[in-house]
């Protein structure tokens, strides 16, 4: 447990910052909803003049954008982008820390198994993400209730909000795997940003071309918000895809972490 508490404390600051940013985004953007809804017709006209591919790429849906859920779905694209960066950065950083700060000789010379270290670190990361999501959920729920014009389906709102956590878990696992791919991970941020943006761009292209198979390639497309709004649930095949990716990355992480040689300083 001491490693768990230590890691929680070590990432307290960054997690606080990320949580504040995510809550900030949702508060700020949702605050614009009332004025946006008031001028809905004028806005719709502007949007109609835009090419369809662009609309799809940025995730705008003409018929739903003026509803609260529709608007929320739209801004959620950027929430998930930020959340993914947070999650992957956390995953990569927490596992590669010993290599980067050369503290492996400290931690792994202690009477703990590598499995226990991995477990403590991943649990700490999970806890931090859960905390982030709890705060985000609260902030999003509050602002949505405050700015609503008509009543909205809270169940769907909750499902959309919860998809942040699910995408974050996938990226956390990807981060774990990324941390262990190289013998010594020195640059967490470039690797994180590179990976997340690559997936985001694939998502962008996939959405604008409407290519169904491309959707499997990027976690950003796993939780389609118009599907959630229409069906009141997640698409099972993509839930499975998320679970498979997370499981594969996690297993790889556990095995590599236990077996690899820790690079000499």
């Amino acid at each position, binding site marked *: 447990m001491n490693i768990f508490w230590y890691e929680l404390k070590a990432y307290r600051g960054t997690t606080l910052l990320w949580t504040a940013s995510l809550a900030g985004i949702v508060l700020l953007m949702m605050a614009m909803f009332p004025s946006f809804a008031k001028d809905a017709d004028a806005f719709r006209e502007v949007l109609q003049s835009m090419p369809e591919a662009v609309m799809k790429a940025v995730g705008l849906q003409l018929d739903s954008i003026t509803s609260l859920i529709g608007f929320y779905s739209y801004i959620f694209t950027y929430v998930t982008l930020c959340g993914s960066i947070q999650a992957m950065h956390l995953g990569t950083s927490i596992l590669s820390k010993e290599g980067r700060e050369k503290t492996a000789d400290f931690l792994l010379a202690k009477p703990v198994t590598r499995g226990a270290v991995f477990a403590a670190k991943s649990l700490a990361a999970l806890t931090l993400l859960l905390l982030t999501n709890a705060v985000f959920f609260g902030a999003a729920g509050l602002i949505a209730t405050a700015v609503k014009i008509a009543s909205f389906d809270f169940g769907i709102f909750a499902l959309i909000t919860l998809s942040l956590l699910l995408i974050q878990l996938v990226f956390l696992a990807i981060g774990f795997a990324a941390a262990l791919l190289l013998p010594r991970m020195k640059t967490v941020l470039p690797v994180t940003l590179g990976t997340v943006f690559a997936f985001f761009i694939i998502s962008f292209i996939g959405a604008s071309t409407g290519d169904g198979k491309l959707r499997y390639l990027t976690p950003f497309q796993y939780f389609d918000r118009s599907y959630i709004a229409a069906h009141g649930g997640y698409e099972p095949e993509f839930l499975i895809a998320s679970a498979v990716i997370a499981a594969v990355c996690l297993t790889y992480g556990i095995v590599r972490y236990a*077996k690899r040689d820790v690079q000499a300083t």
Partner: protein
Amino acid sequence: MAVIELNGLTKTYGGARGVTDLSFTVEEGEIFGFIGPNGAGKSTTIRTMLGLIYPTSGSARIFGKDCIEHGPEIKKEIGYLPSEVFYYDNMRVKDLLNYSASFYKKDCAGRIKALAERMELDLTKKIDDLSLGNKKKVGIVQGLLHSPKLIILDEPTSGLDPLMQQRFFELLEEENKRGATILFSSHILSEVQRLCNRVAIIKEGRLMALEKMSELKENTYKRFKLQPAGQVAPGAFAIPGVTEWKQEDGEVSFLYKGNINEITRRIAELDLRNMWVEEPDLEEIFMHYYVKGA
């Protein structure tokens, strides 16, 4: 009882050499020196014993248990000071030591305080702000705070000033009297000489020699350099044990191995301006083992 047993320990990194077929034992209560030049494989050996890296073949046993299989169990009784000390930077010394202590199921608060006082280490400072020597002290306290039965030190004295080094050695001697076995790696033989009972000499990943310190001292050469006032008769030092005789620019130098009284008697007959007697450096000792091994 053997505290450390290495059996044909081999570690290769890809194609690169780490250590090759290393076998020796360290007995309980010994202070054991592990000597070799930089890159000889000292750290590789130590890090294998601690399970930081896995052996390619062979095995290492500590307290009679395989150090991979029973790693966490044996590490309860090991204190380790890495050669380069890096600790989580944004921490205070006190926090790091408490974190370190939290891995052992004992109360170490008193020990931390006593050790820090001994080593003159300020517990409230941030690790970031510490000098190399002070970081080393953090490492020392960290390695000793749980009163381990086996203390493994990888080049522990670099960065310590002579006074601290002295105190550190005293500390180690006390730990040893208490019953702790100590493995001490170094590339400086003279440093080890004072403390160690036995030494293993390693070069290019292979064990060159395993000797009692007392024998090693008897068997090693001394380098003499004389500046005589007059001429030295060619036969003046023609006794067994004198090698590499050189005479130039009014200076005489040679290596000597044997009874020291014999040679001083000869030197006493000369009228000298100056004289130097040096311990041969490590390289020369290695040369000696090279020759012996060839």
